[in-house]
């Protein structure tokens, strides 16, 4: 495989399958704000609140999800200071978990029992577009 030269344009496919919905963006930001208010020990098991780096990553992720045309996810806090976003339709499932260190883990399940998982790269935008495109298809 040849390495692209710096003077070559690299085009990333970013056309959303579904048009971004401003209402979904607003609801996602509201939910993030709500979770950001969780106090220490919100789970009764000594969890810290949502970590600052998690909030920062979540804001960036939400903006990318909006641009990608993602439907409203279910938000859940994760013990230890993280946040999980998840979607399900018919048999298709997608989960994105922002870990306490700011990394994003993903799990996609195209069929019951089938799962693909991994950690998104630091520059996750193109991967998130692909995941949303897969889910919306």
């Amino acid at each position, binding site marked *: 495989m040849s390495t692209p030269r710096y003077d070559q344009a690299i085009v990333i496919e970013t056309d959303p399958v579904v048009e971004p919905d401003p209402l979904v963006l607003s609801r996602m930001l509201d939910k993030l704000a709500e979770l950001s208010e969780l106090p220490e020990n919100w789970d009764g098991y000594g969890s810290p609140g949502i970590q600052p780096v998690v909030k920062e990553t979540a804001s960036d992720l939400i903006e990318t999800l909006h641009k990608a045309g993602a439907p409203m996810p279910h938000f859940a806090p994760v*013990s230890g200071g993280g946040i999980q976003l998840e979607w399900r339709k018919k048999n298709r499932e997608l989960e994105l978990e922002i870990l306490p260190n700011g990394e994003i883990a993903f799990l996609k399940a195209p069929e019951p029992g089938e799962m693909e998982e991994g950690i998104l790269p630091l520059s996750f935008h193109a991967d998130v577009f692909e995941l949303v495109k897969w889910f919306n298809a």
Partner: protein
Amino acid sequence: MPIRIDDLSIADDDLLWRRLHPDWVLPADDGFRISSAAFKDGRREVSVDLAALTTQEKTLAGFPDQGLAEIKAGVPRSLSHAIVRDPIEDNPAHALICEPPGQPNRKRERDAKEIARQASILKMPQRK
């Protein structure tokens, strides 16, 4: 994180209880389901109570809005997680489900999903 040795005095059929935050239960086609988020912890050890050593009332004391999930110890154990007793002040029933040492984050997602799938809801959490 210390290396945890699976406590075999806890039988596979022994029941573990985990309190459920309201955001950990979602509507599903056949009622409700537990989010995998309920069985994750960034510290890689998930707190539970050994049901045999407590009561639902004691586990839920102080957390009136939270629900309660039940899972057999054999489920996380079948995924190579250790179950250890971890009594704490005011809660001698406290125990931990511990990820295998060195487990990559990605397997954590899959395991939590499987544990959540096999857990049942004993009490629904209440939304304020």
